[in-house]
């Protein structure tokens, strides 16, 4: 039965979350480098700083979120319990 391979994949999700954060930070730097080049519709310095700061802030928040989830997963172990939680004959709430 499929039940044989019970695995907790939460670490995958946490990695994904950290990757979103890294991508956001990368995007902020790419944006400022694009703005230096020959492009249509350049942004003013003030605008660019605001956008860049927001991207970096949220990138950092996502990475912090990933760390918090990591703590929840491996220190508090609350994520692991859900794996054991195999309810039988669940009546779905139709």
């Amino acid at each position, binding site marked *: *039965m*499929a039940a044989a391979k019970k695995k907790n994949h939460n670490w995958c999700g946490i990695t994904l979350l950290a990757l979103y954060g890294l991508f956001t930070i990368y995007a902020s730097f790419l944006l400022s480098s694009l703005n230096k080049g020959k492009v249509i519709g350049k942004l003013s310095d003030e605008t660019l700083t605001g956008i860049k700061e927001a991207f970096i802030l949220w990138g950092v928040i996502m990475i912090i979120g990933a760390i918090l989830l990591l703590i929840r997963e491996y220190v508090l172990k609350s994520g692991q319990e859900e794996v054991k939680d195999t309810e039988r*004959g*669940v009546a*779905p*709430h139709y």
Partner: protein
Amino acid sequence: MADEKNLENVKPDEILDVTGETCPIPEAMAHKKLNKMKVGQVLEVYTDHAAAVENSFPAMLNKFNYPYCVTKTGPGEYTIKIKKTS
């Protein structure tokens, strides 16, 4: 209701493994398989699409009035047993 209790331990006649696939494939394939099966046979479906277990399967099976039983076998993994009654 009694039918649904008994279903838990019945050995399935057919198995459909649609893990990793999203709607409408689990329901559509189960529907197709059920159509080919004989009355009284039991189909076991493995899926990990929570939305299918919560909405699509119950809705489809209630329409046909087939008894079914859902077992959560792991995080986001489900086994559905369906009995074809008509």
